[in-house]
């Protein structure tokens, strides 16, 4: 998965709230068999996120887990929404997390959005996509 990147926000019931895959510009669609692997790895890393978040004052937890060539970085919001990113290269991931967190807070202010519910907003998606391009793929 050279250069590609998978981002997931996880709610309180370990349910994915928002998922997105980032692929480098040249690469077409990712293969299907990778898509579920992403989920598996991110989900498995949650155990370590749960542990690490009590050891640090920071929201950004750096790399918490590693599976073969995938590194899992995590970010825990104040509302205990876990953001996990899967990547083999880790540049700019902290900024990405911070920006997405900003975005998420704004989104969560919407009184019609129920915390933990999957985010189905094209605007949100577009913005995350943009942030991903800005911080991760560039």
């Amino acid at each position, binding site marked *: 998965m050279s250069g590609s990147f998978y981002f997931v926000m996880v709610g309180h*019931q*370990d*349910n*994915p709230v928002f998922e997105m895959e980032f692929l480098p510009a040249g690469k077409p669609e990712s293969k*299907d068999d990778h*898509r*579920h692997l*992403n*989920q*598996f*790895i991110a*989900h*498995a*890393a*949650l*155990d*370590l996120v749960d*542990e690490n978040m009590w*050891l640090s004052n920071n929201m950004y937890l750096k790399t918490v887990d*590693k599976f*073969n060539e995938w590194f899992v970085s995590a970010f825990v919001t104040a509302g205990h929404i876990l953001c996990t990113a899967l990547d083999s290269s880790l540049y700019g991931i902290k900024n990405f997390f911070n920006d997405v967190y900003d975005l998420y807070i704004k989104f969560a202010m919407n009184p019609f959005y129920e915390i933990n519910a*999957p985010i189905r907003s094209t605007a949100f998606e577009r913005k995350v996509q943009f942030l991903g391009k800005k911080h991760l793929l560039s």
Partner: protein
Amino acid sequence: MAQCVQSVQELVQDSFVPMVAVLCSEEAERVTRKNNLNFAELLRPFCRLTSEGHIRDPSNQVQLVKNLRICVNNVVTSPNPACAAFSPAQRRLLNEVVSSCQPQEGAATNVITAGDYDLNFSDHCVKASVPWYSAWRQTLSEVSTSKHYTATTPWFEAYRENFLQTMAASEHEFLNHYLACLLVVSSTETVPVEQFLKLSQEQHRIQHSGDYTNPKWFIPNTLKYYVLLHDMGEGGEQRADAVYEDMKQRYGHQGCYLLKVNSRSSSAEDDEQMPDPWSQYLHRSNMQNQVSAALIVGLIVCGVLWNNGPCVVMGTPSTGLEGHPLQLDTASSPGSLHALSAEQPELKKGGRDPESLVGAAGSHGACLTLNDHDHIRQFIQEFTFRGLLPHIEKNIRQLNDQLVSRKGLSRSLFTATKKWFGGGKVPEKGVSEPKSTCGLLYPPEAPELQIRKMADLCFLVQHYELAYSCYHTAKKDFLSDQAMLYAAGALEMAAVSAFLQAGAPRPYPTHYMDTAIQTYRDVCKIMDVFITVKQSSFVPTSFIPLYVQDSDLRSALLLEQAAHCFINMRNPMVRKFAFHMILAGHRFSKAGQRRHALRCYCQAMQVYKQRGWSLAEDHINFTIGRQSFTLSQPENAVTAFRQILTNDSRQTATQQGAFLREYLYVYKSVVGGNEDRLPQLPLPCIHSSATRVYFGHERRLAEGEKQAATHVSLDQEYDQDLAAMWGHLEEQLVAAANRGIVPASFQPTQCCLNSQTDNLRRPLAVAEEPIIVEVTFRNPLKVPLALSNLKLLWKFTAEGASPSEETAGEAITNEESLTEGTDTVVTTQIILEFLMGPEETKMARLQLLPRRTGQLSIVGVVYNLAAAPCAETQAVDFMLVRGRQDLKIQGPRLNQTKEDKMLVRHGLDRRLDPIITPPMPLMEVFFLQFPTALLCGEIRKAYVEFCNVSAVALCGLRVASTHPDFFTFGSQGTTPLTPVSPTSAENCSAYKTVTRPPGSVASEMLVSAGDFSQPSGVMDIPIDGGTLLPGESTQLPLWLRGPDHEGVHEINFLFYYQSTEKGTQISHRVLRHTVFICASRSLSVQASACRSSVPPHHRLDDGGGGTLVFVDVENINTSEGGVREFHIVQVSSSSQRWRLHRRINPASDRDCKLTSRERAKLCFRATRCRPPPAASDAAEKYTFADVNLGNERIISSSTPCGDFFFRGCRSPESHRVGGTASRTSSSSRIQEGRAADISSIVKKCNELDLHIIVIWKAYVVEDNKQLILEGQLHVALQTLGKEVTSLTPKEEAQEMVLLKFKPEAPAPVAPPSAELSQLIKTNLHYPETHSHPFVQESLCVVPVTLTLSNCSSAPVDVLIDLRHKSPSPESVEVHGSFTWVGRTQYKLQLEPQQVLCVTLRACFLQAGVYNLNTPRVFAKPTQQAAVCETSQQAASPALIIINNA
């Protein structure tokens, strides 16, 4: 780590035991064979020592050896260098061991709760894929508290055991090298001693010739122990004893033993039950024979102490540097299930094999008595304590001495010399691999290995402390030599011995193990799988380097163990567990272990399920489905695939297509040819609550010219308000049909049932009338679906009242496809093809035609499901499965009681359970020439046709409408003779007319209101005979009148009819019709009335007194419709007491034409009617007076004019009181009751109650044709002086009312002066001019007559005062010059309607113009007190001119 039977300590101890080889002479072999065992096997059950042994360490400390076990094996030589990679046979064996060891079904479940996850182990895998969460939650508490754990992964233990036994010996370790050799010779041998010698030589040859690399020997001078085996059954005990004595002489009594066995003849005493301790070792020994190398070397087991339990982590370094052939990989992921099914039998066969192996073995130890058992036990003890342990002790001592002697040189110097000379050890690199990754290799007898040997020896005799220090030293040496493989081995063992040290003086050296693993992995690259779990405080991090080159099976097993490690941690890591289970499952499936793979996936599924990780879930479900299918659990496969399809899938369309095809394939194989019990299909989704049920035929909307009643159709959306409106209309109709009483059981007819209708009762359907069920299907997939042969499933219970029929009371159903003759009960319509696009929601309308009476319940739908053929693939899709889906409709959520609100409860919904009733009449209604647009007030004639299309006669035809004033069927007797058929009625006036020249005088007619009025909004439809026979139809004229308000009006008709038969289940039927009429503006009529002041001589014939009626008519048509002009044809009046008398317009404008925005004023005089004959009901008689302006007189009292008049005058009232006209009469009664009240008297006096009907004709050009439209407008003049208009003023927007915080002071009760002043009408009669010669006579007296007429219906007291009262200066100025002479005050009483004349005299002094209107008249009703006396103001001046003659 899963629960194991053995503790870690035990496991490690049992894994590293002194190895003893056995060499047997042939005779001895024969003796043991009698027991169906070889010698090694014979000893095996007794290899664990029950008593404690002692050993002295080099420092002469006595060391206790507890619970020692030795391992006895036959020497099996193999000439080739050992291949660390398993041979195919070994692999197969291990595979079999694992696959034969499966979790027991129905075993006690083992539940682990971690966070909000509950995990269940050793449960049957079916349950993993179905929602059973809550089910085992209950059992959770009891199970988790019980401490009775069995091994959760027995297959792992079996594997481990077998693995350890089949492991080849390794070069760098000595733990499983042979320490001693038993030389066994039978006493029956002719010269046993010779045999011993031979065996001894044999052993020496094996060990030292170099021909064999296997087995490996620990020390050059292996302990040889001579055993004389004596068969008691063959006698010769003396001789044996003698030989033994000889042996003692020769080998020392510590080096030999006489073992007496077989004291029992094999044939005798079969019935005696002997314990068979061999059986549990049996299949192990079987395998032993198959495996070439029976030496165990190089196993590393290390224990890691968790806080909550031991955890074994196992690594298996294999020394095979030649590469690892991947020969055993079975085709693990076959491309499609078609291939999978072929593999199945093979797999089954494989699974059986181990069992047959076990079964083949007979009984063992048949010739052994319990005494013999003891002998063997004693022998082992003797051997160990006298032979083996001293031997070990001696060797340790020796090695120690060597080491101590070498210690003279310093370590560094020692190594330095080695480096300089390079001779002490020859760094032998692997010949085949010159650049061996493991660093250098020592020759087997290299001095560097001595310390390691000593360590191993100490380890074997449980002297862990010494072992640890030796390992520790050895590690340092190896590391300094860069012998990485050796160093790693030493490190591991150091860690293990530290772990096993009882007192644990030092903490467990975790880093040792880590380093060892690292070394193995990085330097040696020989790890297959290595798992370690690092423990640092309470936060374990873990890493699992996977270097899988060799065995999928091993990695699978180890991954599974890793998963168990995660779950058994203090803070269980459930998600890690799940992930590793998935990985393990994947490996298992690659290794061909389908059952284990399935189990792993199922267990992992518990974590992923229903959390929204859809891709992961799909993957798991897909694997579960495939594995279940290959394991011939197709039901589970179907469930799993169903999950994939029904879940909210994020897969691509092609993927979904593939899933769908697999599902269909699996499903088809499950169902097979068995079509009787149709299983449930998951696709497409049925939105059950959106199901709509429609009773009756689909409506035809139009038939030629005819326009059918709209009724209800499935295309209409349900509207709560509309339903209430129809219900209300129906209630009126039912009330009308039942003499005004609505039966208690009344329930509005519902033709179309949906989720919002009241579905608590079973609906009533009629036999021979179709039932249409609209089912909403949703295709959740991105691939199209093709349904075919779609039909409804139903159950029918015939009515119990038909005893002649056999089937009565028994349910008939069409669920079984083979059931014949269901069509005679209920005909089921089949939709042959029903295509659904990707993610489409589509409704299917399925029809049933019940033919008999009874109870029907619609159960579900049945259809063939197939993937829709794509455009690209033209191939015919064979994947067509038939299945059903049930329609289960949940009723609305209850919200009545508190309990309902707390819980989620649902009510009944019976819309799919109709009761079929006997045939009922069915009527269809058609409309002919029905307009869509009308002018306000326009009268149009249309026709309506009623058809009875059923086989039952109908009667009681009625109609109710939301706009009863909109139409009329005409009234009996007054209906004009218009042509009944619509065709001949072209351009014919709707009115009944009589030719009559225009005149100003009205013609009158007296009509009883009863002829017209209907009791309520319900109208009876006047059909001939009142009934419609089957098949009959009748046409009736219908007059319509455009609504008074412009705009689009929705007019609803509800036709009511009932069967001529009595006592039917359905009391009546209704038919709805809705029309939309666009009304455009025509004329506006404003009318007012005032009391005429006609001189008395004119109105002598009028009885009471005349009233002037002014009618203003304006054309307000905006004329876009081509309306040219309006002609006012006639003005009629209708009242009970008044009538229009004559037109008093100026003669010039006779014909009243109005073009756009023109206005005309018409003036009429109205007079009181002649008092009606006393006999007739005066109140109900209306006088119609027509004043025609054209050449024809329209008889306004007849249909349709009269009808609409009556409807029009009632409707405002009925509108006001909400449609029921019952209250009007009561209110008028109240008025009568208070007749005495002054204001009412006064009001009555002013009451006019005259209805003006303006009939017009409009000339319209439409399509170059001139049409004449007619119409009528009604104005009701209620009181004098008030202007009324036909246009109701537009509803003005409610004005903002100022919010007031202080209640307003009640308005003072104003004396009803204005009304009272109307009681008496006064008139002055006098000559307009009067000439008087003032010269001759200075006073001029003129007689003036004052006429008083009482307008009210009560006697009135009148006071006339002629005195000038308030001589204000200006009034004096104006008329102060004349004076009334004579009597200046009169007091009179006037009877009702009485006219009285009083003659007055006015006296003038000079010529001039005078206003005579100065008398003041006070009137009061006689009964009232004097307070109410009020002046009757004479408004207008009455001028008189006095001339001077």
